[in-house]
């Protein structure tokens, strides 16, 4: 199995490398544009994938409702921005308030979802928690659909076109630039949170061993809640940014985005935070090249095929450690 994987890996890399070099020589600008498009896409995936990977790291559960939290973030931003816009507020204030509300509300939803659907099932079989998560996702989607609308809603971008960026705007728009920069900032902040703060330390301890962490005086329930809140916050940022980029949202956007982010998290090695970021960028960029050079309608098929291939040949992901199943 090992030699097959290595051989296949080399062959695939060779073919991809050959095509990449050829395309680069034919049309370098297009190649570069696709790269930046992929980078933008990957940044959004990374913001969502972080929530998946953190939650998985700490309670070994795929939080199916995570995509919905991202959708609720975007939806809240849309509602707040429209209301304030109609009241004639300043655009800069609107943008800031929309972001703040989206983050606060997403965190609140993430927190509540954990308390309702996952906490009572902490000691139940894995399958129960997973089904409960799917139920929650279904519920949240339909709740937004019924309370708001099943139609696509136009989302007026919150990010203005920067003047200083105008000369380069044909290569990468200011929204895309904002997405990439925001993602980098969020990653750095998150890294600091995990590495250097008390709660970050508690999170790492809980992820390693819940019982031991509890024995050492860590309130495991609070740590799990905090993990959901942090994950929801990054998802909300991703939701608002992608809504600014795409310009329209509906109740269903969380489903596919959540799946893609999950694939990215698995690709990088689920449970590992740098892995989630790396996996997202790899997935985003390769998806961008695939749609740019091959068939754009099979974009999702491509992503799922990557997932299946990764799970067959390297289930622990690019950066994940292989751990034996414990009894």
């Amino acid at each position, binding site marked *: 199995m090992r030699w097959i994987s290595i051989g296949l890996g080399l062959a695939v890399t060779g073919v991809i490398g050959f095509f990449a070099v050829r395309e680069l020589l034919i049309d370098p600008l297009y190649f570069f544009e696709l790269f930046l498009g992929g980078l933008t896409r990957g940044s959004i995936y990374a913001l969502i994938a972080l929530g998946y990977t953190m939650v998985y790291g700490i309670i070994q559960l795929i939080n199916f409702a995570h995509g919905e939290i991202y959708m609720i973030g975007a939806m809240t931003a849309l509602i707040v921005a429209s209301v304030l816009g109609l009241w004639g507020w300043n655009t800069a204030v609107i943008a800031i308030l929309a972001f703040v509300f989206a983050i606060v509300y997403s965190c609140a939803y993430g927190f509540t979802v954990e308390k309702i659907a996952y906490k009572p099932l902490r000691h139940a079989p894995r399958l129960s928690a997973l089904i409960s998560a799917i*139920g929650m996702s279904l519920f949240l989607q339909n709740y937004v659909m019924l309370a708001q609308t099943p139609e696509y809603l136009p989302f007026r971008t919150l990010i203005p076109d920067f003047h200083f960026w105008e000369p380069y705007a044909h290569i990468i728009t200011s929204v895309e630039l904002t997405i990439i920069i925001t993602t980098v900032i969020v990653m750095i902040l998150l890294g600091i949170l995990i590495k250097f703060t008390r709660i970050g330390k508690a999170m790492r301890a809980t992820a390693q061993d819940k019982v031991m962490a509890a024995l050492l005086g860590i309130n495991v329930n609070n740590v799990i809640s905090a993990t959901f809140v942090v994950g929801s916050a990054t998802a909300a940022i991703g939701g608002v940014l992608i809504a600014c980029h795409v310009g329209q949202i509906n109740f269903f956007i969380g489903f596919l985005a959540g799946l893609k982010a999950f694939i990215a998290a698995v690709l990088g090695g689920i449970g590992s935070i740098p892995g989630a970021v790396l996996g997202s960028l790899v997935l985003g960029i390769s998806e961008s090249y695939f749609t740019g050079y091959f068939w754009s309608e099979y974009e*999702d098929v491509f992503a799922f095929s990557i997932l299946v291939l990764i799970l067959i040949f390297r289930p622990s992901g690019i950066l994940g450690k292989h751990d034996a199943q414990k009894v």
Partner: protein
Amino acid sequence: MPIKNQIKQSLIIAFWFMILTFPIMVIKVNTIRHTIDFRWANFLWVGIVTFFASMIWNYFLRRNEEQKKTDIADDIPLIHKLLQNDRFRRPFLGLVAAFFIAYPFVFPMYHTSIMISALVYVMLGLGLNIVVGLAGLLDLGYVAFYAVGAYAYALLNLHFGLSFWVVLPMSAFLGTLFGVLLGYPVLRLRGDYLAIVTLGFGEIIRIVLENWDDFSNGPRGIGDIPAPSFFGHQFGQHDAMIYMYFIVIGLVLMTIFFVHRLEHSKIGRAWIALRDDEIACQAMGIDKFKTKLTAFALGATWAAMGGVVFAAKTSFINPMSFTIWESITILCVVVIGGMGSAIGVIAGALVLILLPEYLRAVAEYRMLVFGALQVIVMVFKPDGLIKSVRKVYTFKAREE
């Protein structure tokens, strides 16, 4: 906890939810006419409903805790007790049989048609029950196999003129084949990855059907699929429906028979053991991978047969019939009815599919309720409405 504190706690929770749902429940922005509706009535309703819901929720949580402490062993569902009793079982089964035989003759065609759909779900539910309920593998792409069956019939009929009765066994075989093909790479993985991979596979099949125009006619779908014939005789529209109804009844009976036999066979016991404890099961010498693969492939077989029936009944299929919602509906049937329990799944399918059909006014809340029910069932009654009862094997000493 004294009642005063409970009320206080519920009031806090109600207030929390009123704030939490405020932007989505109360504000409604019309982005085209640029107006805002404030629906303050919803604000109040959320408060009242969550107040009582949290009281009930907490009450049941506490009751569950206490039940766990006392640990009562004898909680076999009423229906199982009744069915074990011979005096009750015969008249009961007789009544059920009489009802289902008389059904298409008593009720108009519309109701027969709905009943056929519900019975197809019974079949699908029982098939998925093998995968999810018995073997404990969460399959979220069940609809893919359903689509395989439906498209197999539609395409084989369109191109080669094969009839329903020829395609039905062929599609069963095709379903098994697809089950093995998909199961082979992914069943080595841990359970939660399987859910995502199957979900992805379901979507892949749908996207391919939508985009591969030459093969599947794309989103326009395939029409004029003939209803099944009776030894070469085609019925009129009304009789064809009744005929279809009895075919489905027959298939359901066959499914029940097979599933029942499988459940108590060696492989069925291996599935249940594998679901309950993988490691212990492997230590007992059961081939984990092969056992899982059989469950997965058998589940796919039933889905494909259900697909053929579906195509024959609606006489038109397109990729829109095979979305993720279909998979989730079938999963709901199994989960809410009772994982692993055939009676539960049958009851679940009939209730969950028939009720929304007759309560058209609230049909749009169907998925919302399904989602909520999944969470509630998992938290309070993980075994579903009618839980499965394991067969008791008694040792009979040989008389000498």
